Each structure stands twice: as C-alpha cells, then as structure tokens.
C-alpha cells in the first residue's frame, strides 16, 4: 500500500491535513460557531469591563500580585472549569454527532480513508480550532488584567516579572485541557447518541472534585490541570486537602488519558455504521 501512495504515514498525514482544512471551513469558520466564540470571550468581556470601569470610578490601580491572585481564581474556577469545558463539549461532540445530525457522516465513511485517519482528522481539527480560540481568549484576558492604569506595573509584571512564567503556565494548562477534554468528548460522541448525559455526570464529578477524598480527586482531569496552575486558589472550607500532582506526572497523565480515549474511540470508529433514523 505504501509503495502505491495510497497508504502509509505520509499519505495519512495528507488526508488529515485535507480534513483539517475542510473542517475549519465547514464547521468552525461559520456563524454556527458564534456561541462557542462568545462563551470563550466571556472572561475577556469581564476584564474589559474592569479596564473601562476602574478608571471611571477613580479607584487606585491594584497591585500586580493581587491581580495575579484574583486572576488565578477566575482562570481556575471560571475559565478552566466552565468555559473550556463547555467550549470543548460544543466543539468536539459536534465534530461527530453534528455530522450525524446533518446527515453528512456517510460522505466521510464512503471516502477511501481509514477510520483511524478519520478520527485523527476530526481530533486535530478540533484541537486546532479550540486551541486557537482559547489561546486568543487567554492572551486577551492577560493583557486586559495587567493593563497599565488599572494594575500597578502590570506590563512589567507580565512581560519582565513572574507574570511571564505564569502566562506560559496558563497557556500550557489551557492547551492540555483542550487535549484532555477534547479526547474525552470526541470519544463520548462515538459511544453515546446523547453525549450530554455522560458529560453532565462528568461535569458534576469535576465540580465536586474538591469535596472528594484525595484518592478520588486524582481520578479527574481538573485535579491534574489545577496542579499545573502557577498560583493555588482557596477551595473553600469544605475542601479536602489533596497533594497536587507533580508536573512530571500530571502532563503525561493527561496525555496518556487522551491517547487511551482516542484509541478506544478509534476501535469504535472501525465498526461505526450510520443509521440516521435513530437520531
């Protein structure tokens, strides 16, 4: 197969690239993607509001370290837990179940392409779209949080101080979250006609994570992501203390989980049959 040019890694990479272009055009650069974009930009709206309101109210600029602490809360409790979670749910489940809903999945399945390549193409497309969207949102958030005039020496803190390291860590955690949640939701879309049911259970599990015993806290994506965040946040009086996972374990752990989920989804994809009547 490899000798004829219709198989092998290079050919599959070409197919994945073709799928990436197609998905970006037909799924992500369309008006239907607007709700996800708006959700991703919610934290930006909040910080823009602060940048506008603060000078008008005549308050003193906040110290950069204090802003970094408050931003840590917003990143972990709002951006990561809800915005990225729901954004990835919308993007990655739509990649498969959306095709079923629009009666267009069979075009992919009829094309001369391995099912694993089809899955990889979908995952890469979601990864690129979600990664770009949430990275842009994060960049805007950081710029607005440390904008001069609202935060004392904000620019210095962000570009020359400890803020630069924090920003890099936040970008890394965001991309890792997209990989982890993306693989999870893509796999769910292959196994469940209504992936919202397991997703809601998962949301509940991730939401009550801080109340669980330390061993169970580690059986979640959010615990490993929060372990990688540069600033710890107060999780409330009822939180059970659990040691953060070291980065050397947290990063490979999430990547391994994603790989396992994609492998499982690939096995399912091999036997995938389209029966639109049930949807």
């Amino acid at each position, binding site marked *: 197969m490899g000798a004829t040019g219709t198989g092998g890694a290079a050919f599959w990479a070409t197919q994945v690239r073709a799928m990436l272009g197609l998905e970006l055009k037909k799924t992500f650069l369309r008006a239907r993607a607007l*709700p996800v974009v708006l959700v991703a930009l919610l934290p930006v709206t909040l*910080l823009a509001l602060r940048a506008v309101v603060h000078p008008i109210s005549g308050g003193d600029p906040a110290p950069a370290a204090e802003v970094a602490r408050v931003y840590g*809360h917003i990143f972990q*409790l709002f951006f990561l837990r809800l915005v990225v979670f729901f954004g990835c749910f919308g993007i990655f489940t739509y990649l498969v179940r959306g095709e079923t*809903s629009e009666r267009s999945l069979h075009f992919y399945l009829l094309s001369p392409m391995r099912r694993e390549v089809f899955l990889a193409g979908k995952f890469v497309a979601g990864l690129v779209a979600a990664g770009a969207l949430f990275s842009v949102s994060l960049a805007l958030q950081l710029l607005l949080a440390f904008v001069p005039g609202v935060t004392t020496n904000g620019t210095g803190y962000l570009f020359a101080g400890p803020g630069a390291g924090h920003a890099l860590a936040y970008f890394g955690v965001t991309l890792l979250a997209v990989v982890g949640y993306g693989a999870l939701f893509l796999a769910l879309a292959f196994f469940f006609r209504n992936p*919202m049911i397991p*997703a809601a259970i998962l949301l509940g599990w991730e939401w009550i994570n801080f109340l669980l015993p330390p061993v169970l806290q580690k059986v979640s994506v959010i615990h490993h992501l929060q372990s990688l965040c540069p600033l710890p946040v107060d999780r409330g009086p009822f939180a059970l203390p659990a040691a953060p996972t070291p980065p050397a374990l947290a990063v490979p752990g999430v990547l391994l989980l994603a790989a396992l989920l994609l492998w499982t989804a690939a096995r399912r994809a091999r036997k995938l049959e389209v029966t639109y009547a049930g949807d």
Partner: protein
Amino acid sequence: MPVFDRRYRGYAGPRRAERAAVWTLARFALRHLFDSKLTLVLAVAVGLVPLGFGTFVYLANNLDVLQSAGIQVDLSLVDNGTFFAFLSVQTALAFLFAAFVGPALVGPDFAHGALPLYLSRPISRGGYVAGKLLALLLPLSLATWVPGLALVGLQAALAPGWLGGHARVPLTLFFGSWIWILMVSLVVLAISAWIRWRPVATGAVFGFFLIGEAFGLAINQFLDTRWGSILALDDSVETIWQSLMGGATIFGRPVVQEPLPVAACAAMLTLVTAAALAAFRAKVKGAEVSR
C-alpha cells in the same frame, strides 16, 4: 351497474375550536415524553423527594411514633425553612428534567423542517409556542407546586392551626414555582429552537445557568461589587421566594446571604423570561430561507 358520486365533499363533521389545537399539540408531545428511559429515571427522582418530605412532615408531627420505637430524635417543627428546602430541591430537579426533556420537544421539529407542516394546519405561531410550552409546564407543575401544596395540606391536616400562622407558604410554593418553571421552560425551548441539535441544546441550557452564575461571581470578585450575583438566576429566584415567605432560615441561618433588592431580581427574571419568549417565537416560522 351502480355509479358512485366521487366528487369532492368538504368535511361536514364537528369542528373543534382553534384553541383546541394547542391542547392537541401538548397532548401528542406528552404522549412521547416518557418514551426515554432517562425521562423515567428523572421522573422517579422527582417523585421520590416529595415522599421523603411527606415522611418528614408526618414524623415531625408524630414524634411519639419514633419514641415508641426507641428512637430519640430532636426533629425541629415544620416551618418556612422546610418548604423552602423542598422548593429548592424540586426546582433543581425540575431544571434537570426540563434541560434533558425540553430539547426533544421542539428540536426535531426545527431540525427536520416540520414547522411548515404544523403551521399549514389551523394553528397559529402563538398556538405552537403555547402547545409546546404547555407540554413542558404540565410535568414541571407536577414536580413543583402540586406536591408542594399537597405537603402543605398534609401539614395543615396534622397540625390544625398551622396554616393560619404560615399563610404565605402555599402562596410562595405556587407563585415561586411558576416564576421558576415558566422561565426555565421558555429558556429551554428558545435554546432548543435556535440550536436544534438536542445534546448541544441541553449543554447550552446547563451552560446558560452555570456560566451565568460563575460569570456573576467573577464580576463580584474582580469588580468588587455584589451586583454580579444578578446573573445567578437561581439566587435571584431564591431571593424572591425568601421575600414571598417573609423570611426563611435553614439550620438557623438565612437561606440567602446578602440578598440583592427583590425588585432587581424580579426585573432580571422578567427580562430573561421575556427575551426567551421572544427568541423562541422569532424562530417559529412557516417558511425558512436556506443559503
């Protein structure tokens, strides 16, 4: 050879009023409501809570039953807090029910272009909206104010004179439930009509409420205000319930800490309900241009 007259004859049977079509829509929607196992599970969960509260009300009024069984307990008397807790739990379950069941009521109609078929019959756009809304409001009523009033009836029967001192409780259960279920139903239907695809519509309903609440908390934290809580719709409705009840405490603490003004909460809920109704109605069209 007989010759039969095969010419067209108009329908000469009894005609129902145009308003009856609303009930027809709701009836057909309700018929398929419990086809899904998930709906059944949610319905059972919704039904179990009033049984639990009913047991509590009975035992709280018959402590001698427990004492005769050798169980020494200190059950506080049934008060506003008990019914506030009931309302909170049941409306949360009603929200789950609406979020999972609601999108199936209208999503397929929009996804498969069935609106022209509905609207070609003697039913108006408003009638379609009312029919689908009714199909969601009926089960949600059975989950919230109906068992709530039954519990009040049980308590009033077991403790004569109780109702006189707690006249605001049944009013709060009735009006408080309606405020919540009407808003949730319209938000679910509007989101389902615009998103069409059921799982994402359910996700969007969760997102609308959860992200709104978290966004409000983030506003409070970053802008050093308490007005961000206006976006937490469940907190807003609880503020209204507390006001309707004339105060309620659970374990000796007010159920809503530092509440916003009731008028502001009511205005917010009215705005969301009206916007959802407008969004849903705008989507109900007999024809659609696809590009």
